[in-house]
């Protein structure tokens, strides 16, 4: 295997919690991200999944150094970006871009779309004005919009179109890495499919690496090559996509998968809810952080924190019974037949 594009090691972000205004005293630490390590190859998609508060978005921001880490390293092509000076950081940012979740909040309403997309090129001094304009047109076409859209303002677009604009902006400076922070969660399902397809096409065409942050495991299963599952600031399991779904090892991964309702009434009642709530990251439980909700927890889980070994951070990984989750089935025959006709007709249209 060649050297990875991105190498994250022991990454942490701790926020002090203070009480008092003038003589503020630190009364605790929120461990938003607490020792996360992974690698990402060129052209690959790694998904970070987990529920709210697990630290996946904080990790995304740390990777781009939009916030400063408390500890750990982020190596991009072997170079640690956490210690770069301003100029080098800027050069790095040209190679690594981000697409945000909310297509309404992430575009400046006073900028035309053309200006929004051209801005990263201006910031990085790429091309002259005329060729920037040509590049904007090219980018608009690339994401499925039209050149005349450059003159318009964000409010004239739907959510899905805005997300396309956000993607065009991210691609303007020809990055190698795009961090996608829940890029489709705010979109309707039919629009979500358009954007997911677009991201896949762009990856194939441009050889992009994606760090894909999401909470929807079905979307993740569709887009990712590898998946890292996070819980309370830590990666509890990381594996190739197929391996993860065929044999989810960590009890939390299993719980997450078992909680998803299938779009199939024949499988009604198979959803198994996980009890309890996520504990506060202010006082994460000792030992394994999942032990308070884990049906398999034993004494060792309450006392000793498990290390990530062979892609799983669980003391009992070797002895757990099979997950017994069934991901076979698929569309009903009639639905599949008509969908094929739909796809064919859509292609001809």
């Amino acid at each position, binding site marked *: 295997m060649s050297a990875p594009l991105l190498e994250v090691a022991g990454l942490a972000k701790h926020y002090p919690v203070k009480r008092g205004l003038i003589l503020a005293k630190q009364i605790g630490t929120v461990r938003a991200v607490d020792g996360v390590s992974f690698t990402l190859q060129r052209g690959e998609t790694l998904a970070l999944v987990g529920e709210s508060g697990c630290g996946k978005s904080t990790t995304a921001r740390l990777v781009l150094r939009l916030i400063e880490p408390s500890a750990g390293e982020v190596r991009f092509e072997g170079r640690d970006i956490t210690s770069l000076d301003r100029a080098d950081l800027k050069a790095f940012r040209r190679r690594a871009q981000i697409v945000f979740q909310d297509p309404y909040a992430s575009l400046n309403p006073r900028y035309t779309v053309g200006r929004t997309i051209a801005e990263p090129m201006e910031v990085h001094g790429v091309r002259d004005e005329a060729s920037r304009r040509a590049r904007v047109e090219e980018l608009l076409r690339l994401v499925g919009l039209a050149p005349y859209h450059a003159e318009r303002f964000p409010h004239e677009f739907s959510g899905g179109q805005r997300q396309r604009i956000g993607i065009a902006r991210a691609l303007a400076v020809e990055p190698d890495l795009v961090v996608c922070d829940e890029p489709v969660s705010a979109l309707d399902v*039919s629009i979500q499919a358009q954007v997911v397809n677009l991201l896949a096409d762009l990856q194939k065409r441009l050889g992009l690496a994606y760090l894909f942050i999401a909470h929807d495991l079905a979307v993740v*299963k569709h887009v990712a090559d590898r998946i890292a599952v996070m819980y309370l600031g830590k990666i509890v399991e990381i594996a190739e996509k197929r391996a993860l779904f065929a044999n989810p090892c960590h009890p939390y991964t299993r719980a997450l998968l078992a909680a998803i309702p*299938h779009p199939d009434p024949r499988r009604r009642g198979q959803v198994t809810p*996980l009890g309890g*709530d996520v504990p506060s990251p202010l006082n994460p439980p000792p030992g394994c952080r999942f032990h308070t909700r884990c049906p398999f927890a034993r004494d060792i889980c309450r006392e000793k924190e498990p290390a990530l070994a062979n892609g799983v951070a669980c003391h009992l990984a070797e002895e757990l019974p099979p997950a017994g989750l069934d991901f076979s089935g698929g569309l009903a025959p009639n639905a599949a037949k*008509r*969908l094929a006709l739909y796809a064919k007709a*859509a292609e001809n249209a």
Partner: protein
Amino acid sequence: MSAEPLLRVENLRTVFRTSGGEVAAVDGVSLEVPRGRTLGIVGESGCGKSVLSLSIMRLLAHPGRIASGRVLLEGRDLAALSAAEMRAVRGRDIAMIFQEPMTSLNPVHRVGFQIAEAIRAHEPRASAAELRERGIAALKRVRIPSPERRFDEYPHQLSGGMRQRVMIAMALACSPKLLIADEPTTALDVTVQAQILDLLRELQAETGMSIILITHDLGVVAEMADEVAVMYAGRVVERAPAAALFEDPQHPYALGLLGSIPRLDEERERLLAIAGAVPPPFALPKGCRFHPRCPFAEEACRAEAPLLREVVPGHAVACRRAPVEQSLAA
């Protein structure tokens, strides 16, 4: 449906007056909700599913109003009730829960006070001790641990899932016959969603209430609904028992939705995306409202809106080309 349904919506049309004229957010919708059953209403933003539920509750804000049609709850037309009569129906006969439990709860009042308020609205003579007792019982019913303590807490002290439980407790405090749940789990994490769906199902079994479940999530529909209505641009385009919708989907829009969602139980190279976007209610296309996005559209679809017709008893579709394999072969 042979037995008289609890709720029957007939040809409901809800309009909003705008500077550009009246637009119909709900345009001729007819539905039935049988007793003790769950009707799922599926559709994307702007399809009118939320306006429909607000119309049933008579909670439309100005400039929205019901222009025509009837909302029959046990034969009584809610659309024709006075405001005071409707207040007596809300909470007691029909209750509603919303997507965002934080914005639906009042942050400056204790949750117990808010539950008690719902009970007091219908039973003004209840004593404080009685309200407290019933409020705690309501919290217990939605499986909130240590309800006596939670009764005196504020919404911000509760987690998202716990808040939605409080909302459900409040909605069920007066034992309504119908619960309208508008995207009740959309803002929740998937493991919490599973807890809430489980709770709703248990409560329905206990109380025999009917549920209208509004959602965009076909997984939630498959898990919860007995009957499903698919809405598009203010109209019901397909209505079927839940199993039939998934096993024998008829309307191209329903097909498109099924093709758009990535599935855990299947691997596909590409998702089947529906082209284009939902039209805004002030710029609706003529004829079938789905025709600009429909790969099967033909001349007639552009000219005239299709009527909802039964293809199988209990399964109706508003598409002249359904089932597509037959119309394509013809």
